[in-house]
Structures are given as structure tokens and as C-alpha cells.
């Protein structure tokens, strides 16, 4: 997993609630058996004017000028500002892979759907929950100021705005530790292999039908 420590980058506002993972990466791209290459198809239905298919040269397709990430001021976006229930719907981790591949490493929203939230941490994408009023404020600032950037510091659990205002955020300690160090969850869990085996031995006695 890619480690995350600190990032300063362009912020783009995606002003709609319930952004679902079908919208983040449409189903036709889920046929890939790889983890990479999803970036050009991030938000495919919203981003392009034509219908996209896997294997196309996406750089030749007509862009939808209305879509936020296509606007010149939001080129090189690394931080996305979203609304409630971000990442709802399908469990597809391809949604997170698409953000990573595109170059977005942080998403800030008032709330995230559970599975997407988990998937993000497992890939080095940092989802940050801030209260509604703070998110509203950030939307106003981003829209008012071209080139708006935020600095996100995971070590300090702090976001800094261009005016120097600091916004603290909360993140689960275990996840923060893993993300800061780019640690593989499986390796950490396997340190407890004996505990897992002991559990299995015990459980086999009380619920043997689960092991037959």
C-alpha cells in the first residue's frame, strides 16, 4: 500500500450527495482483472459525452465541459470535496483504485458509506470526515478562489487552508498508523496467527458443523 503522510494539492468541489460507486467507476470497467488503469474512467459517465467501453483510447473522447474535473482550474486535482454519503452503493474497490490512478489522494465529505471508507484506507486514499458546516465553508472557499489548495497532514491530523486556518480532523489510530507507514494489513494480522488458530480449535469444539 502507498503510504500517506502529507499532501498539498488542488481541491475540486463535487457538489452532490450520494455519489455512488457506479458513478465513480461504471460497470463495464469492472471486467478488468487488474488493479491499475482505472484513472481515465473515473466518473466516466459524467466526464465524457460519449458512451465509454474498455479498451478505447480515452484521450480521444469528447469531454463534458460541465463536469468539474474537466474545468481548467481543477486540472491536477488531488483533493476532492464531496457531500453526504459519499461512495455509497456497490462494494467495488475499483472505485478507490480509480481515484488513486487519477491522482486523487484525499476526499473530504460530511459522511462516507462504510465499505468505500474501508476500501479507501486499504489503498492509501485518505477519506476525511468534517462536519457539514465546515464542508459548506470549504465549498464556498474553493468555488470563490481559483487555484485553491489545501494542505493535509495525516501525522498532525490537520488541514490547513490558504489563509492559514487550521482544521483538525479525526482518524482511527490503527488506520492512521498503517497509512503513515504504508503497511500491509495482512502482514499485521498474520502476526496473530496463533490467536486465530486457537480460536478455530475452540470453535471447532462448540460449533463443529462450521468446519465440516
Amino acid at each position, binding site marked *: 500500500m502507498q503510504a500517506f503522510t502529507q499532501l498539498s494539492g488542488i481541491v475540486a468541489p463535487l457538489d452532490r450527495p450520494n455519489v455512488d460507486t457506479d458513478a465513480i467507476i461504471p460497470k463495464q470497467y469492472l471486467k*478488468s482483472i487488474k488493479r491499475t488503469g482505472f484513472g481515465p474512467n473515473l466518473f466516466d*459517465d459524467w466526464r465524457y459525452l460519449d458512451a465509454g467501453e474498455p479498451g478505447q483510447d480515452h484521450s480521444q473522447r469528447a469531454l463534458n465541459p460541465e463536469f468539474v474535473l474537466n474545468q481548467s482550474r481543477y486540472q491536477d486535482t488531488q483533493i476532492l470535496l464531496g457531500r453526504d454519503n459519499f461512495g455509497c452503493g456497490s*462494494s467495488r474497490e475499483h472505485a478507490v483504485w480509480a481515484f488513486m490512478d487519477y491522482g486523487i489522494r484525499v476526499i473530504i465529505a460530511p459522511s462516507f458509506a462504510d*465499505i468505500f471508507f*474501508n*476500501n479507501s484506507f486499504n489503498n492509501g486514499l485518505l477519506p476525511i470526515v468534517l462536519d457539514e458546516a465546515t464542508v459548506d465553508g470549504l465549498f464556498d472557499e474553493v468555488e470563490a478562489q481559483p487555484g485553491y489548495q489545501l494542505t493535509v497532514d495525516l501525522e498532525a491530523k490537520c488541514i490547513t487552508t490558504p489563509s492559514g486556518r487550521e482544521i483538525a480532523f479525526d482518524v482511527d489510530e490503527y488506520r492512521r498508523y498503517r497509512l503513515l507507514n504504508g503497511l500491509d494489513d495482512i502482514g499485521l494480522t498474520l502476526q496473530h496467527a496463533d490467536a486465530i488458530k486457537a480460536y478455530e480449535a475452540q470453535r471447532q469444539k462448540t460449533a463443529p458443523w462450521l468446519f465440516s
Partner: protein
Amino acid sequence: MAKTLYDKLWEQHVVRVNDDGTALLYIDRHLVHEVTSPQAFEGLRLAGRELWRRESIVAVPDHNVPTTDRDQAIADPVSRLQVETLNDNASDFNLTFFKMNDVRQGIVHVIGPEQGATLPGMTIVCGDSHTSTHGAMGALAFGIGTSQVEHVMATQTLVMQKSKNMRVTIEGSVGAGVTAKDIVLAIIGEIGTAGGTGYTIEFAGQGIRDLSMEGRMTVCNMAIEGGARAGIIAVDEKTIDYFKGRPFAPKGEQWERAVEAWRDLKSDEGAVFDREIVIQGRGIAPQVTWGTSPEMVVPVSDRVPNPAEAGDEVKASGMQKALDYMGLTAGTPIEEIAVDKVFIGSCTNSRIEDLRAAAEVAKGRKVAGNIALAMVVPGSGLVKKQAEEEGLDTVFLEAGFEWREPGCSMCLAMNADRLEPGERCASTSNRNFESRQGLNGRTHLVSPAMAAAAAVTGHFTDVRQLTAQEA
């Protein structure tokens, strides 16, 4: 202390508690399909890791498989590669596997219970959000991402944070013609699509107890559309009867022991829930979604709502966006909305009871002239076989429906079954998101009986009027 069903299931599966309060949770059953597993298998190989417990895995292709011409190779080369990759992984890792043309093949959430591979009291995961379905049998079942799929493969566990407890009680029975789908759509309409975020929802009350196991699966299936990763329902005699004699269910003395344990799978009297919702069963009518989120739902007798009356700016603009996408005008009676296609299928509503309910409406009627395609896609090869034994295929075919091979099909349109831009569909699936059923397609979620009613009348119709004529 009195415990909720969720508390019990959780406690039975904790391997260890980490310093930060998260737990390592043991996973009993791992269901695998072709879309979310290839990268996990690849990850295992790259790291030189083995499966922790091969026997815990049941694999099946469902998302990509065609619903016609199954004797031919899959036409789409990308889909074919993905299905073949699952075939290869299943044979390399020696998994229990139902290949495409096995009669036991079907949608992963239909075949799990059908085979008795998912049982009460288990923790069940799958790289698929609708894994919540299996909670209907008193199991803790939830969807996971591909990294977690790999984690479970390698360790048989997940690092989890315990969620909060919510109980949704349907007080009293629902009326005739009102189904499990209507109940769960009404619940989502009430709590919203994020209402269950961070909770495990236990569905309870007379309206839930009355349901068959199939109906309960429909309800738990859509817990995720209410934001909850898991939905659960207490075990009762219906649950136990359902599993008796299923291929993977315990036998003999093991069965007796299992049943004894399962009888405790209910919330204790006096257990405390962090949030309680009570809905009167008799107040629930057949539901139709009008927008692009499952919470955008109204009773069929209602009208398309007006954003101006939302009373909140963000909400109103969301509603207007949805209306624009759906090509609908506020105030239009739902029953005046004509549809182009009808899809009866998906892990929400493709079990035998669903097909019976739709066939009952279709029987002796014809698909209306304005319907371009009405299709029935059974949830599994065994559901299909049983339906054919009951003559349901003939009922559908005579009415003008297509009768297809099992799979996810037009629920997400990864195979050839899809909506064309602008087409409007009455669908028994679970998501009405933009372009879910095909680019710029328009989805209205309904029950199987309501979908059949829309097929034979050409527009949304309160199915109770059709069935009342017969009575």
C-alpha cells in the same frame, strides 16, 4: 446483560481485541465471484501466501455471465477473460466451485442459502455489498472490498470496528398485495440511504416474522441501500425448516447440535438498541421509486414529488437533478408513467417465491404493446428448474416475457442485457442509480408483482387492483 442478536454474533466471532478497540473477527464463510476476486488472488500469489481455509470458500460466476446461449463461449472477450480467470483460480486453489453451466450456478446471494452454504450463526463475507442478504437467516453477513477479500483469504479474519445496533420494527401485518420489497423500500424511504450508516439493522416485528425466508432475504438484501452494511433477522422455526436437508447443511447429530445453537440467535428481551424505528405494517402500500436513489420512493397511488416542497436547498437540487435524469415532471401520478422494459430478477427478487408472485399476475394476460422487452431471469439454475417444474416458464412465455438463464443480468448490465439511453424500466433489482442498468437508462424499483403489473398494463399499476378483479 441482555444482548442484541448482533452483539451475540459479534462476540462469538471475536478472535482478539486490538489495543485501539477494533477486533479481529473470524469469518466462517467466504463467497467469491468473478468481478471482485481476480486482484485478490493475484495479490496472494504475488505475496506468496496461501489460503487460510480453502473449505470456507464457495465460488461462482454470476455478474458477467450471459443469460442466453449458454452452450456457446461468452461473446464479450473481456467478460470471458474474467469468468475464465475465476475458473482458473478455482482450479488452482481447489475451491468449491459452480461453473457457469452447472445447474447449481446462480447469483451468489441466491445460491449461498439455497445450498445451505450460508447458515445461521455464521459470519459471511463476499466482495459484494448485497452480502447483507444472508443476514435473513440470523447470520452476520456483509460486503467487503477486494483488499479485504484478500485479507480473508489469507487470514480467515477481518479487522473490524463493531457497529451500532438499530432495530426496525414492522408492527402488525402488511396488507394483501404488499410484499417484502415494498416493506424494505418503505423502510429506506423512512430512514434514507444513509440512515443505517454505522449500524447493523435488525428487522423485527410481525410484518417481518410473517415473511417467508425468501421475503426476509429481500429485506436484508436492501439493508445496504439504507446504508447498513449488515441487516439481520432472528432465527425462528421457518429458518430452521428452510435449511433442513440442504446440501451443505449439517446432518444427523450435527444438525441437532446446530439447531440447538441456532435457537438462541435472537435479541434478548430488554436488549438495548442505539436507534429504534417503528413502522406500522398496515400503512405500507406497494412502492415505486421515482428518482436515482432508493430513498426516492413513494406509494404507487402517489405522485412524483415536487422539489419546491422539499424545504431544504441541497435536497431540492438533488431532487431536481433526479427528475431531470429520470425525465419526469413533478406532480405526475405514478400510475401514468409508462415503461419500456421490465426486468424481473437480481439477488433481491429472483427466488422461487418472487417468480410465483410475478407469474400470478402475468397468468392469462399479455405484455402490453409498448413494452420493448419484459424479461425474467431466475436467480439460480435450481430456481429455474423448480419454476419450470411448476409451469411458471410457460405462464411467462405465453404472456410474452422472455425466460432467461440465471445471473445478475440487467441488475447491473455487465453482460449484454441492458437499457438503451432514455429507456424506462420497471425493475425488481435494488439500485436505481444513474446508468446502473445501461448508460442513461431510467430505473424504477418495484416488487415482482408490481413489475409484472407494469408489464401487462404498460405503465405502473397498483397490483392490488389487478388481483382484486380476480378475487
